């Protein structure tokens, strides 16, 4: 893990990059990183996130600034701007079931080619996908998802990069921290090694490439 500034971290992300962003309706989202992505005007982003949050909050800021070219998410219903951009064909949107999204990312981070899930069988979600029967039950083959970057928000990060999360701000962060080539983390508190007990570390330090240093 290397501690760097917000500006340096975001400068690494090229326009058009694929980026996973943690958070659920803007809770547990690395807001400072997104503010800097907007400031550096990184366009054409291929965004993977649970939802589109709301205007002005979480990944909603990326839609406000028109920086997204493609979105993979489970829900965008609470962000009218993202909906407008989708209906106007300014962004391509893949809407996928939330559990399938979590498992596809988990698979991507765990070296699996995909997962077999019953979710979506017999619905429009199944279109174009392989259906596989196991012991008489139908499953869809859902392929793994990875990204060039994961932007993760933790509650505690220690000096080595071990991470712990708080309450419902954990959500997609630990799974995304496994599934990207470069993992960039903001934390509410940077603490000495040992403050997070070994049993309470959720994301192990070797997964973290960059931690945003305090100013």
């Amino acid at each position, binding site marked *: 893990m290397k501690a760097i500034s917000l500006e340096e971290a975001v400068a690494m992300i090229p326009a058009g990059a694929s980026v996973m962003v943690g958070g659920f*309706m*803007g*809770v547990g989202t690395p807001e400072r990183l997104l503010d800097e992505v907007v400031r550096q005007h990184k366009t054409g982003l291929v965004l993977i996130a649970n939802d589109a949050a709301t205007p002005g909050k979480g990944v909603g800021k990326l839609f406000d600034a028109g920086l997204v070219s493609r979105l993979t998410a489970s*829900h965008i219903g609470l962000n009218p701007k993202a909906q407008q951009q*989708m209906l106007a064909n300014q962004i391509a949107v893949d809407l996928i079931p939330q559990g399938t999204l979590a498992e596809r990312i988990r698979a991507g981070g765990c070296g699996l080619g995909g997962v077999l899930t019953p979710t979506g069988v017999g619905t429009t*979600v199944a279109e174009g996908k392989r259906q596989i029967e196991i012991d008489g039950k139908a499953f869809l083959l859902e392929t793994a998802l990875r990204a060039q970057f994961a932007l993760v928000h933790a509650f505690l990060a220690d000096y080595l990069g071990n991470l712990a999360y708080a309450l419902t701000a*954990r*959500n997609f962060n630990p799974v995304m921290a496994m599934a990207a080539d470069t993992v960039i983390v903001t934390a509410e508190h940077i603490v000495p090694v040992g403050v997070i007990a070994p049993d309470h570390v959720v994301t192990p330090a070797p997964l973290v490439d960059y931690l945003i240093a305090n100013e």
Partner: protein
Amino acid sequence: MDAQEIIGRRVARELRTGHLVNLGIGIPTLVANYVPSDIKVFFQSENGLIGTGPIPEQGMAHPLLTDAGGRPISALPGACTFDSAMSFGLIRGGHVDVTVLGGLQVDAEGHLANWMIPGKMVPGMGGAMDLVSGAKRVIVAMQHAAKGKSKIVSKCTLPLTSSRTVDLVVTDIAVIGFPDGKATLMETAPGVTVAEVMAVTEAELVIPDTVPEMKI
């Protein structure tokens, strides 16, 4: 008693001590207000919490403790938190005893459509497809009709949420079950007759010899 309270009270009577329960947005959320005091259930919020409590007192909200709609909630003693993969492992893995979801249409076989209206409302399915596919028991809590049109239909015209059928539908005027895979009138709301329910229901209902009144 208004329509939503009738639905909320009746659904709450389906819950049993020890159940792990996931409530959808809208009318289903109200169910938590009507759980009898002697019934102790665990409520899951799919953004990563078991042990969801009521809306916090004024000034007690925490920005990192929210429901699946991003609104502040509280956590009860014994609550636990987890990531999204675990949360949906619980849902798909059959560990959730009951899910209560809203509906746009339920058809005569029990298929549910509740996530999109093509060309009008395309919000995404969120967790609905996983919940219907994986929960042990699926209860739909919705108004019987919308804008004068029955939501209990012969065949869903809107995109299905799952190929798995639901177990029970509770509306403001009726409880409908699906024994033998056919929509069957199980109960009517107080003051509502069987004929009145049939008159506002598009789907053909099986009517048993006796149809008790809903206890709420």
